[in-house]
């Protein structure tokens, strides 16, 4: 029976602890472009993970569909009703848009257009330990993904690109408490209330929209979208709705809990938001690459 701590072994343990601390310290910071070794490992595993994830998702989707079969009829009727509302609404939006355009022309208004294109991507894995709230998608640098791009689903914002490899990239979800990037957001009320989303409340499963002046009228149910201030995320991406408003610890400001509209547990197809207006020079370059493929 070897003794648990001979001198040599103790030294090895200490040295390896020091090495670990050093490596952790070196890799702790934000690394949008990881080393080529990590990129290679992530891309290789990404390939096998996409082989496993897609069929699993399809089978799960089939069972979900079976479950939804029964409610399909009532849902169909509800959707038909809302479709009529939708037609009315889109007619009204068209009318307002025209009016808006006419007014802008009258004012000779130069707008800075924030146009973006959506790049569809598929989730290929999710970090199993819940310390990292992260998914990996099957699009990378080769497809034109860059760090800090916003990632959305059809329902709303879900996160941002954290690190990019050649063929895969990691997406940091909104539910990551350790998120380093704050999102500048705006509440659509009587007047727009600007603020920053600074964290995530795990128990209530809602985003924390903090440091709003105390007098500002906030209501449950108001819509929160990205404001585009700071230039990281484009404006107008839907985040969610306010579910609770409470004063902060010192009763100086108030905090709103914003429930994300997108389901952060059930992720399948995502869209990466590519801001074209910010980098006009790079557009022909990406076009060339697409043609080569």
């Amino acid at each position, binding site marked *: 029976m070897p003794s648990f701590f001979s001198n040599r072994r103790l030294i090895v343990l200490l040295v390896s*602890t020091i090495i670990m601390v050093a490596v952790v310290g070196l890799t702790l910071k934000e690394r949008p472009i990881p080393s080529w070794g990590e990129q290679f490992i*992530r891309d290789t595993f990404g390939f096998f993970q996409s082989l496993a994830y897609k069929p699993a998702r399809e089978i*799960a989707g089939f069972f979900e569909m079976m479950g939804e079969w029964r409610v399909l009829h009532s849902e169909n009727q509800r959707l038909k009703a809302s479709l009529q509302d939708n037609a009315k609404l889109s007619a009204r939006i068209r009318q307002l848009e025209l009016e808006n355009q006419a007014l802008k022309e009258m004012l000779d208004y130069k707008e800075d257009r924030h146009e973006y294109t959506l790049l569809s991507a598929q989730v290929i894995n999710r970090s*199993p330990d819940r*310390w*990292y709230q*992260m998914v990996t998608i099957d699009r990378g640098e080769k497809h034109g993904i860059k760090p800090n791009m916003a990632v959305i689903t059809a329902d709303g914002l879900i996160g941002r690109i954290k690190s990019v490899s050649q063929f895969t990239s990691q997406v940091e979800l909104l539910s990551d408490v350790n998120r380093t990037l704050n999102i500048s957001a705006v509440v659509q009320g009587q007047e727009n209330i600007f603020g920053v989303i600074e964290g995530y409340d795990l128990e209530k499963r809602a985003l924390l929209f903090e440091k709003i002046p105390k007098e500002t009228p906030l209501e449950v149910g108001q819509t929160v979208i990205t404001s585009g201030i700071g230039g990281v995320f484009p404006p107008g991406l839907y985040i969610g709705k306010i579910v609770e408003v409470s004063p902060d610890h010192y009763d100086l400001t108030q905090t709103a809990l914003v429930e994300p509209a997108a389901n952060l547990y059930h992720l399948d197809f995502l869209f990466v938001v590519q801001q074209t207006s910010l980098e006009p020079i790079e557009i022909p370059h990406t076009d060339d690459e697409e043609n080569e493929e």
Partner: protein
Amino acid sequence: MKTRFLFILTILILFVLEGTVVQVILSGWSDLHLAMVPRFVVVILIFAALFLGRVQGLILGLSFGLLYDTVYGSVIGVYGFTMALIGYFTGLVFKIFKQNIFLILITVLVALVTFEFMVYGLFLLISVAYLPVETFLFEKVLPSLILNMIFALLVAYPARRILVEIEQEEN
């Protein structure tokens, strides 16, 4: 040699399944989704260390830990270090505990809890983790343990047979 290759391939497949198929299954229940963490690779690593000894436990733990760090995380070193330690220390007790399947499962249980707490502690230090200890214990460790012990029970007999085979091939 062939058995060993197949064994490592099995761990790699489990490694991929942890982040894909298991996540798809869990995604149906948002509550479980937060609580249950599959640690299938760690369970197999503990089995391997029990039968193949501390050096191989250390090497397997270090390589799969670093792989885990790279693919499922962003900070390198936390899983590499903890899984190497778990492999090494379960390898140290291998002579006593590998006789009986019940003792093996107890070892797996103790090693898993130790592993979870080591990872939690390290992540707390670098502020990736955020939960208070009680919440961590009752809402993360216990549900995960149920899942992983069921897995350990299922694979205990086949894993023992394969590992004994590898052990005999070596000698």
